[in-house]
């Protein structure tokens, strides 16, 4: 199929990457966002780029070290990660993860406490050991989403912000145009990567996608002395030391939420800030005196099995990443581009990320899982 005009609905990191990949292939791309690009989960996450569980992993690893050059703008990508334990249970889990990755040919080294403390000067006597991913890393979500957007524009793509999609025009079962608050956008094919709203948008096309959204929180400190490797987490936290030195960490219980078709009306943080702070202070005792200067929350959509959906029906390609969208974005965009232009992913098998695995799911699946707002 030779789609010449594509509309991407959703300017989160997955939609931005897909739009950028499509523009690189020479097609005309218009991207719509309900607000500002990257404003929801794509710009509020921990910045991790180490998703060994994903079929997109190899492509993620191939691309991140090149992204600054490919996009032309800085993403702050920094390679490798260390995960450190402060309880025996954590150490057991991390050792299992190391063993599992090595079995799969993805190198992870086991570190003793002294080796961790050498690599992570902020670690303390309570460190029981850790593991070192010889892959992956972290990047700056704020900078990366803007880098995709600017790179898309540099290739001739159009970004229309503050333009929520409101409906679709179809002809013979194919989408011919996307309607937004800023007009009608004609297209040969459409990509829907609209975070939690993906489900309600697909429903307008009679495609059922089971999704639930949750609120999760992070905190950040003032800058700490720079460590050689910023991708350090563990103790129930994900996060990183930024290239400025700040320690940004999240984790812990999420809250299932509901909201309207235009997305979350608020992104409130809670006193979970205190539980996060405690775990950062335990993980990095050398930083316990540092000031926490912000907390924030983001809203993330999840599929029932917590795995992404990347699939296509007719000329509608859709993507929801279940909370691992940022790191995998260089690869998910490539996969979406392939689905749109070639009908199948060219670089890996993503069949198990298909929508059909949820066919016939009970209407009350959220109730059964306890994934309901309080």
């Amino acid at each position, binding site marked *: 199929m030779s789609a010449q005009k594509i509309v991407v609905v959703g300017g989160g990191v997955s939609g931005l990457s897909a739009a950028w990949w499509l523009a690189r292939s020479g097609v005309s791309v218009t991207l719509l966002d309900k607000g*500002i690009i990257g404003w929801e989960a794509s710009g509020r996450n921990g910045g991790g780029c180490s998703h060994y569980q994903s079929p997109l992993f190899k492509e993620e690893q191939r691309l991140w070290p090149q992204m600054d050059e490919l996009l032309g703008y800085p993403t702050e990508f920094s390679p490798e990660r260390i995960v450190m334990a402060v309880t025996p249970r954590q150490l057991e889990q991390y050792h299992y993860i190391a063993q599992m990755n090595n079995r799969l040919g993805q190198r992870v080294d086991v570190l003793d406490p002294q080796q961790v403390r050498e690599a992570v000067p902020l670690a303390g006597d309570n460190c029981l050991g850790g593991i070192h991913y010889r892959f992956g890393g972290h990047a700056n979500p704020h900078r990366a989403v*803007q880098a995709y957007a600017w790179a898309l524009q540099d290739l001739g793509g159009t970004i229309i912000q503050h333009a929520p999609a409101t409906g679709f025009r179809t002809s013979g079962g194919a989408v011919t145009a996307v309607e937004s608050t800023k007009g009608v956008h004609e297209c040969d094919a459409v990509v829907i990567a609209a975070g939690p709203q993906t489900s309600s948008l697909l429903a307008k096309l009679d495609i059922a996608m089971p999704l639930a959204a949750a609120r999760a929180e992070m905190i950040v400190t*003032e800058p700490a002395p720079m460590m050689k490797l910023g991708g350090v987490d563990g103790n129930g936290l*994900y996060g990183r030391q930024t290239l400025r030195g700040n320690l940004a960490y999240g984790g812990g219980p999420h809250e299932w939420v509901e909201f309207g078709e235009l997305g979350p009306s608020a992104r409130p943080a809670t006193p979970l800030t205190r539980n996060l702070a*405690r775990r950062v202070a335990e993980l990095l005792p050398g930083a316990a005196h540092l000031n926490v200067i912000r907390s924030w929350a983001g809203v993330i959509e999840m599929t029932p099995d917590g795995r992404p959906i990347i699939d296509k029906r007719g000329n509608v390609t859709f993507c929801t990443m279940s909370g691992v969208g940022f790191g995998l974005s260089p690869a998910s965009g490539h996969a979406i581009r392939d689905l749109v232009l070639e009908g199948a992913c060219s670089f890996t098998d993503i069949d198990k990320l298909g929508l059909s695995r949820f066919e016939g799911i009970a209407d009350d699946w959220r109730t059964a899982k306890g994934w309901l707002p309080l």
Partner: protein
Amino acid sequence: MTRTIDPHAIDGKFPAPATRFDVVVVGAGRSGTAAALTAAQAGQSVLLVDENPVPGHQIGNDVPLYFGGRATAATQNSERMLETLFMNTPDLEAVIEAGVELLLGTCAWGVYRNGPLVGSLPGQVVALADGERSWLVGFDRLVLATGARDLPMAFPGWSQPGVMGAAALKKLLTRYDAFAGKRVLIAGSHDLALETALLAHAKGLDVAGLIEVRDAPQGAADLVAQVEAAGIAIHCGVHPVEAKGGIDGVERVILSDGSSVDCDTLVMAIGLVPMIELADALGSARTFDAKRGGHIPLEDGAITAVGSCAGLADTGFDHSAYRFDWLNALGGACGGDTIICQCEEVTLSDLLGVQPPRYLERSPIMQARSLKSLLEDGPPNQDQIKRLTRSGMGACQGRRCRDQVAMMLAVEAGSELAALPLATHRAPVRPLPLKIIADWEESEEMRAGWDVWMGIPTQWVPYADIGTPYEEENRRVLGGNMSL
């Protein structure tokens, strides 16, 4: 029917706060102590907290006021400061006698309640912290009496010790008794500047004069007369173009008419900003009122704002227009290399160029981007500028630059300041060490249910292992409770 609980969701993990009061008052200034007294006399249980004395290092970071490095070493001695502050704050003894629980050196850093997208809290709570710990307190009614903070503005030399705010000077001269300067020059001539001059004069400081960017003194005639009677000159139609000094900061200020004024302190008395952080971080409603100092809180059920955090006294004076006159004048004195955000060292040209910090490479196409090009994509948003340039992202939590950056954005976008989305306030609204803000006594439910991310057992199974015996092994070892 019993509800199925997701064990890793937040349901039931926050315990009820250990203490609660009918009324919690934040800020022991005049309005706050009056509110606390009234409530106590009506038989209500009342907690009155005041963050002063703030820790010495916070004063160094200009939190909560723009102290500009002109506090004496006495502020580093917290015991002595506590005593001084108690003596110098009116009505505290009356408050205690009325049965109010008073906590000095205790800041309120967050207010939380259930609302849109949060239903997990055990009622409405205010988060407090002192030098030892943080804790939550429940309340029926919260009275915010947090006052107003300084409005700094950049010009060459403004980031050295000796350039400070009028509210900070007042605090150091009155409650703290710890001002380190001797001879002060005051920028502004509206009531705030005039009152600042009279206070400094009464405290025995040498007041070098007032400088006013407009052509005539702006404040009330009786205040102008008092200032003149004290022999203090008001120079109109001039503004500072540079503060010059040495290792200890400001020694003299060069004015736009070419003259030079010797002084060790330049007091920015251009404006005050109502401290709405707590209410705004909560998502409470607000409005913009140019005559009351900017963004001010609206009526909000259980939360009441009193005193200047509810808005400056409306005398008909357009504070906003006045501030823009100063911004235009001082901005004209700035070079591209003048620092706007002191914490993150963001210069004026970085800000207008929307450039990343210096530790990142700026490719030619990166350098070609600018605020102007960004504004072609959509209306101005200060949080977006913050994300890209880091202005307002530092240790002072944006107190030194957020207001002036908002004004600059409005100028660049040709839009009204009131139309700009207010840059987000976030808890903790005071910088607090990890070990202080940490919950060291968290609930067993929180501990047992903690998971790094969503707690969905199938999520982290490697793709190649799906449907193999390894999938079961993965679930057995990691379960939904992964501490990774």
